[in-house]
């Protein structure tokens, strides 16, 4: 149902229907922004990536192959744009303020927002390609297959990356007493 709706909107966009384009923006601005935000952990950068993503979608809409899921396509663009943004950051950016200053001891349990913050910090300390699979699985609730389509990876590689990412996150969060 959702795919049909996307396909219809894309078709209308291709025919010059501005309202359909606005609907696509309405539908995907939030997930695209969230993908970028989780990858970049910077609201301003995420907003820029969301804008660039929709511009690219717009520019290449005539080339989009409707036999593929639209959301796979737009998420792939969003992830690539986010990785590009990460690549253009200064090498040390994101590693300042090491958790040593603020990290609670192992005996202290973080809860609620603190747990969330600890997870976000831990996410930023794993490789972006591992972070991307965690985001697609746990925040976008996508299947291995959809993740593979988006990342252009076989399911086996997707699973391998996801398992590695979880192990790393688990080790780091246990160290901080966050889980």
């Amino acid at each position: 149902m959702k795919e049909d709706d996307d396909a219809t909107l894309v078709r209308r966009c291709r025919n010059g229907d501005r309202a359909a384009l606005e609907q696509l923006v309405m539908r995907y601005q939030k997930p695209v922004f969230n993908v970028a935000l989780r990858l970049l952990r910077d609201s301003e950068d995420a907003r820029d990536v969301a804008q660039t993503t929709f511009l690219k979608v717009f520019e290449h809409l005539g080339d989009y192959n409707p036999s593929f899921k639209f959301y796979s396509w737009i998420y792939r663009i969003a992830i690539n744009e986010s990785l590009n943004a990460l690549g253009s950051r200064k090498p040390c950016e994101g590693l300042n303020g090491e958790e040593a200053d603020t990290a609670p001891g192992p005996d202290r349990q973080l809860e609620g927002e603190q747990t969330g913050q600890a997870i976000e910090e831990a996410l930023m300390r794993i490789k972006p390609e591992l972070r991307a699979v965690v985001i697609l699985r746990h925040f976008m609730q996508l299947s291995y297959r959809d993740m593979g389509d988006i990342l252009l990876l076989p399911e086996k590689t997707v699973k391998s990356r996801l398992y590695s990412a979880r192990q790393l996150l688990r080790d780091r969060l246990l160290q901080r007493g966050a889980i």
Partner: protein
Amino acid sequence: MADSGRLALIHAEIDGELDGPQRAELARTLLADPEAQTLREDLRRLCAALDALGEVDPPQQLRQSILDALPQSTPSRAPPWWSAPRMRYAALIAGVLAAGTIVYETLDGPRPATSDVAGTMATADTPTTVDTVRLGNGAVAGRVNLYRDRAGLGLEFELVASAPVDVLVASDGRTLRVNGLGVRDAPGGPRTTVALPGFGRSVDVTFLMAGHEVGRATLRAPKDR
């Protein structure tokens, strides 16, 4: 614990991917291995915490800023290049020049043999290889050339493999899949060319056999001059 098989069972259980026999195997593992139990509980807590993070609302002005940044007219199919008024004049001028050239060629005298001047410049139609990746002695051998011709970029595959190779090509959000490469008995031999209209200068190529990744490479074209 923990061999990769047990780890995979634990992760698969969290993702709801276990069938009956695998569930039984995991239960046996957990009974016999307290470390595995601990790991499972840690990972379940982690995944519950990850799932609980949820989505963040984008800034209120995001939608409007996106719409403002988009051009007012949506792109359908690009109009043919020759339909632009400037191009029509260019075509007219080109036609006149072509007619003039034919008249000149007809009236002009004998020319040196082609061999006297051949090799000084490649014709515009000749594909020029701009990057090459050689594949080693793994599951897939051979090479991939990124070339540029008048139509733009393209890939040329010369692969040899024990089984058909599927190739995913990606660049700037565009993707292309080519199936069944690398088979010696394929019509036309093992060489296959694929045009990449509109693709970016950096092209990621992933090789799959029976659905499993067996290699990947990135080819890059220099900027157009």
